[in-house]
């Protein structure tokens, strides 16, 4: 076994071939550096976030408590009250960032995301229906019996399935997927509005969280199932990287390079839907993360498609960071989903304007 690090004979700077025995790959320093920096920032922001609140705790004390080195009175606050919230935010950001990268590469369109494709809205429909209808109809009672997160999960998965079935026509086409997704998004939004209009005022207030996305009152009950789901989904998603590097070309080129297109497309879309549904079932539809973060990530790492790992980690930084800002800087504790929407909406406009300019060139 010999490990080698060498600069390729040709090609641009900043990439290094790594070979250990029969294993070989190319490392680009920016694609290694960006996730590393994101990870460090994520840990830092998480520690700060756990420390902030009515009972402030210093960053070093937070870290010591989490590592079990310090068993002071703050242990309960750190481990049971604040850590779950940050862990949920972190995992939700991770899932949404990767889901966005998968959708955007698949559709070859930076506008594709679980938000624009209606998946997150579908999850909202499930959650809101469970809250609003549980007392009024038998179907609602069944849905309510599952619990709101499960209803959200079902809503997201059903919408994803509808998207897949309606967009499938002897294969999946990115444009068709986006168009069908926009239609599903409209239907889902209308359903949420209709449900809220007919809801009791208390139900409407409870349901509202599932329309904006929030990390308020998250406990280990949300964090643990989400962590288990991601333990399965994340390795599978990262394993699609090789297929994505070919899938980003046109269909003909991808097949000409030996990709089994229908299988690869199905795997990518289903993984993205599952990641989104899992995230929304834990914290509601925290919008724009999946849309914005992959495009930021690809600008940081360079290259031709959103990097999966970097998108996930930057998504986690955005959600945890936005949650920290809403809790501390802003005068009133807003749901984190509103802040991400405020950041995301102008970005979407910029993307649209820029897209138009490019297409007229």
């Amino acid at each position, binding site marked *: 076994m010999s490990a080698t690090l060498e600069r*390729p*004979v*040709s*090609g*641009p*700077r900043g990439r290094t*071939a*790594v*070979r250990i025995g*029969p*294993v*070989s*790959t*190319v490392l680009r320093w920016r694609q290694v550096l960006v996730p590393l920096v994101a990870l460090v920032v994520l840990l830092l922001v998480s520690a700060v976030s756990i420390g902030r609140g009515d009972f402030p705790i210093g960053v070093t004390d937070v870290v010591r408590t989490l590592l079990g080195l310090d068993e002071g009175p703050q242990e309960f606050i750190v481990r049971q009250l604040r850590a779950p919230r940050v862990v949920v935010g972190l995992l939700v950001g991770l899932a949404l960032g990767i889901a966005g990268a998968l959708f955007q590469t698949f559709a*070859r369109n930076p506008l594709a995301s679980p938000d624009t494709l209606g998946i997150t809205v579908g999850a909202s429909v499930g959650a809101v229906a469970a809250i609003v209808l549980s007392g009024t109809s038998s179907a609602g009672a069944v849905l309510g019996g599952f619990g709101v997160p499960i209803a959200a999960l079902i809503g997201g998965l059903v919408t994803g399935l509808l998207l897949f079935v309606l967009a499938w026509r002897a294969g999946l086409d990115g444009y068709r997927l986006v168009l069908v997704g926009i239609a599903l998004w409209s239907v889902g939004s209308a359903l949420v509005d209709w449900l809220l209009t007919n809801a009791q005022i208390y139900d409407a207030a409870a349901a509202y969280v599932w329309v904006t996305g929030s990390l308020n009152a998250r406990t280990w009950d949300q964090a643990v199932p989400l962590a288990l789901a991601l333990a399965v989904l994340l390795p599978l998603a990262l*394993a699609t990287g*090789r297929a994505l*590097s*070919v899938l*980003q*070309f*046109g269909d*003909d*080129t991808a*097949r*000409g*390079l*030996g*990709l*089994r297109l229908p299988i690869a497309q199905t795997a990518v879309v289903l993984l993205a839907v599952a990641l989104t549904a899992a995230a929304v079932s834990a914290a509601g539809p925290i919008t724009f993360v999946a849309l914005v973060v992959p495009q930021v990530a*690809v600008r940081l790492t*360079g*290259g*031709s*498609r959103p990097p999966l790992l970097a998108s996930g980690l930057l998504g986690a930084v955005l959600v945890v960071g936005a949650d920290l800002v809403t809790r501390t800087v802003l005068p009133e504790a807003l749901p984190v989903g509103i802040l991400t929407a405020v950041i995301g909406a102008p970005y979407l406009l910029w993307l649209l304007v820029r897209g138009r300019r490019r297409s007229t060139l």
Partner: protein
Amino acid sequence: MTAHTVTPAAQGAPAPEAARVRLAADHVRLAYDDTVVVHDLDLELTDGSFTAIVGPNGCGKSTLLRALGRLLRPTGGQVLLDGRSIARTPTREVAKVLGLLPQSPIAPEGLTVADLVARGRHPHQSWVRQWSRDDEAVVAEALEWTDMAELAGRAVDELSGGQRQRAWISMALAQGTDLLLLDEPTTYLDLAHQIDVLELVGRLHAERGRTVAVVLHDLNLAARYAERLVAMKDGVLVASGTPAEVLTEQLLADVFDLEARIVPDPVTGTPMVVPVRRLR
């Protein structure tokens, strides 16, 4: 670990009688939904041949090329790759033997030439073996051979049309396939770049022993570069043979509704079409 054999280097023009059939359409019928585009077509591409498929717009020549490249499944008959049904051959196995260049292929924004050419190695790679020494040598050679080494670090979408087509051909070379199918590789290029691209394809055939089939619009260029012309009209193969055999005044009238004179090309001696007027 792979059964891939390196493409034989320059093997010169093979003797026609000894050449074996690499790719064949056997009573192929092609349709989009209910519209039949190609009816019961037979075609054989022999080892080391250079074939140009010509015909008027909408005659089904690109559709035929797609079927030969396994992008379109025939509704009748079959396509045979080295005597084996291509539909039953795994995609990856096909991709090691047969490369294709679609019409106006799209490269993702920001992709560099080196990355594009490196992608040609995809069928030879696996999850653990993503960038072997072999891959690196082949890609470097492909860039060098197509004069793209200088531009390796540039983004494909910033290149001129001619350079871009060179980059794609470089990728096809890196894929290392014996067979190469090109769908109108000269579309949108000015004449000088059309010549440049066809010279490159011609060198792939002559120096690297590639079996080439190309869909072309320009009959004079097709006659210059291809050894064999195949003329199609309304989904039917009308004529096949050397350029001199196929490009006749009668054929141009029948296939293209064009009255024309055929004169020898003053440079190469191949037939040259001088149009007179369109026939009604």
